[in-house]
């Protein structure tokens, strides 16, 4: 009940800030444009997923940390009240993660609805895409929270690590994987490569998308290994399960830290 009161206030505050509408608008415009220019086929979906794979981790991590810094007064006020720290944490987390997820889902879904794309044969793919976006939002907001709590007194560091973390996972990681393959290509490195993929949630999401659309040409090395090792169906199950484990990790770390912190 108390968590709901906190959520309610945080949502009002977010709406007052208006930027959440801007975030939804970005998805709306991009999805609309992609459907307009690329047709309502799998190509549009693939493009949307590419945008999502970059944007969601960035916004989730940066804003997760930033939001904690902004809510500092609010947190301090509530900590002196008869309130469980766990309740407060989930109130704060839900206060950001839920609106972010809603903005993504509504922004992407709306153009698909009025273009009649949603009720076609691709409905399963679309639902998978939205589900992945949801998991990524929850996951990276959690990582943002974790970083924000770890560097609670040092905003610059917290935000810096969020930015570098995003750059690493979204951009550099693939390069490193390729480099590893290039250097160690003569050895049997399929299984280590598989493990390497599972260590990056963005990669996991990308592979899930590629397996769903069955585009082997675009799968890259890790995707192909994944496909060969697990097959399409089990590959997807494995990828999604790994992502869920990934989701639990930062949330566990952040709650643990929040419970022990001094304010």
């Amino acid at each position, binding site marked *: 009940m108390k968590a709901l009161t906190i959520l309610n206030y945080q949502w009002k505050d977010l709406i007052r800030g208006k930027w959440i509408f801007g975030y939804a608008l970005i998805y709306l415009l991009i999805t609309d444009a992609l459907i307009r220019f690329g047709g309502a086929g799998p190509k549009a979906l693939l493009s949307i997923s590419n945008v999502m794979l970059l944007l969601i981790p960035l916004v989730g991590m940066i804003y997760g940390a930033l939001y904690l810094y902004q809510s500092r007064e609010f947190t*301090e006020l509530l900590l002196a009240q008869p309130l469980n720290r766990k309740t407060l944490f989930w109130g704060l987390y839900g206060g950001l993660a839920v609106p972010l997820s809603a903005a993504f889902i509504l922004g992407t879904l709306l153009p698909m609805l009025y273009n009649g794309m949603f009720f076609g044969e691709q409905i399963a793919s679309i639902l998978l895409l939205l589900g992945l976006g949801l998991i990524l939002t929850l996951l990276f907001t959690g990582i943002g929270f974790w970083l924000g709590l770890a560097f609670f007194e040092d905003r610059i560091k917290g935000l810096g690590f969020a930015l570098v973390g995003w750059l690493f996972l979204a951009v550099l990681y693939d390069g490193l994987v390729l480099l590893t393959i290039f250097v160690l290509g003569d050895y049997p490195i399929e299984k280590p490569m598989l493990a390497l993929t599972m260590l990056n949630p963005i990669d996991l999401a990308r592979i899930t998308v590629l397996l769903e659309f069955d585009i082997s040409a675009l799968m890259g090395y890790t995707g192909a290994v994944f496909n060969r090792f697990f097959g399409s169906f089990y590959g997807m199950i494995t990828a999604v399960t790994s992502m869920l484990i990934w989701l639990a990790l930062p949330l566990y770390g952040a709650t643990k830290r929040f419970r022990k912190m001094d304010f």
Partner: protein
Amino acid sequence: MIELKGLKKNFGRLTVLDDLDLEIPSGQATGIVGPNGSGKTTTIKSILGLVKPTDGEIRIDGELVNNRWEYREKIGYMPQVARYPENMTVEELFRFIKNIRGDQPSNEEELIKHFGLESELKKRMRTLSGGNRQKVGAVLSMMFNPDILIFDEPTAGLDPRSSVQFKKKVRELKDQGKTIMLTTHIMSEIEELADHLIFIVEGKIKYHGPMDELLNEHKEQRLEGAVAKMMEEEAA
């Protein structure tokens, strides 16, 4: 009664509270004094659970409260630097805290009048002056009629008139039999309000007892002189 037993707190390598034993009697006012950085605020924050002690027990009315939260129903707290959500109006803030407390009965209207906050109710916290923010903090700490009241340098930032109003309110609360704990650097305030005095230096208790004893001991007329003497002895 608030009991602290063997309370320790380290921030990294820095020891802020060093094996603190303390009893704060019920129904009386206890003043905590000590030089800057001596651990007054950390002690208070430990009691509230804002700071997690490295070691030691905190009991309130005999009940162990480390890592619990329900006991905070009994405590009203006014922080040293009052910081509140900037976008909320004063009115909204009071309503929000009431919601969080599950609509417990509160006497905030009487308190708002007492502190003269009526004209500030519609203003956002961000636009409030430091003194008015302190007053909002005072109302928040008292509005649910708690048994224990903790004030961390309550009158710093208040103008003389508000300061008098605040002290008047504290005396009223004392007469109602509330347990009051306050820190301050203004010795006259302790003389006016407190029955007991605690003197902390570097996380250790140097004096704990009734006020009059301290005055007798140091053969001083006023508390200011007695405390200054103690601080000098510490420095020597």
